[in-house]
């Protein structure tokens, strides 16, 4: 039960900051895909950088565990292509479609209904996927530090510098 309470409280906080960052907007998401407005990239990359440092600190202290998903080329590339097409049509990703409805963007409802159908269709297609895309190019649970055979604190500063460089570029170009 408390697991569910933690879930909703965490969601409320996350939804609050998504709305404050102005990323729940069709115009911002399509703006990023059209390379006109990098608001969502700024939000996402900042969140990822803070999350990376915080979570690796916690794992080093033995206070948390990484949750690494398998890299399966067939599934990741195939799924990524489909996701990109769908995202470009809808203008919201699954989490932001829900958040968009919260701030009054009712077109998110159509997206959510479509996503329920998409989830149902995937469940039907799963037996075929399991024999094809889901086994093509299975590289296992790899990470960048693991592949490079270096400590994660070698990769993280490079990642932060790359992010900072990207942000400076965005600000210079007014994106």
């Amino acid at each position, binding site marked *: 039960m408390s*697991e569910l*309470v*933690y879930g*909703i409280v*965490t*969601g409320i906080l*996350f*939804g*609050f*900051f*998504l*709305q*404050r*960052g*102005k990323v729940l*907007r*069709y*115009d911002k998401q*399509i*703006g990023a895909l059209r390379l006109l407005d990098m608001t*969502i990239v*700024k*939000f996402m990359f*900042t*969140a990822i950088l*803070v*999350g990376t440092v915080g*979570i690796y600190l*916690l794992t080093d202290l033995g*206070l948390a565990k990484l949750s690494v998903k*398998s890299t399966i080329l067939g599934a990741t590339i*195939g*799924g*990524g292509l*489909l*996701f990109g097409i*769908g995202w470009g*049509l*809808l*203008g919201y990703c*699954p*989490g932001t479609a829900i958040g968009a409805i919260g*701030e*009054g*963007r009712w*077109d998110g409802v*159509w*997206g959510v*209904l*479509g*996503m329920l*159908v*998409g*989830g*149902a269709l*995937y*469940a039907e297609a799963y*037996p075929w996927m399991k024999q094809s895309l889901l086994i093509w190019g299975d590289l296992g649970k790899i990470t960048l530090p693991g592949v490079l055979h270096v400590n994660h604190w070698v990769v993280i500063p490079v990642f932060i510098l790359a992010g900072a460089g990207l*942000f400076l570029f965005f*600000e210079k170009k007014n994106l």
Partner: protein
Amino acid sequence: MRQLRDGNYWSPYLAGAFAGLVLVLSVFMTGNYFGASTSFARSAGLIEQIFSAERVARIEYFTKTTPKIDWQWMFVIGILIGSFIAAKISGTYKAQTIPDMWQEKFGSNVALRGTVAFIGGTVAMFGARLADG
């Protein structure tokens, strides 16, 4: 980064940093990472169960991803509530059926926007589940 506020909104860097902190806190307190798409698949299963529970029980995917309300499902509902609270407090809540950028390009036909959004949602969710995103 020139300013931390943009009208009634925050800088995306500031809001993103807070979102990152919420993730770190969540992983620390409950071990839960953020995600949303699994909950749509579970919800689809929950809805299908209303019509035929036996059929859902035979679908292999739903034996692995059981149709149920879990941490992530509540997290997704929380996003809806959190966004509503933030929009109302800041005075940025705005009921809108057609996004501005869409209207400029494709006009104000609600059915057209609805159809494309629906198809987009279907395709995006299929892809998200396939890539395990």
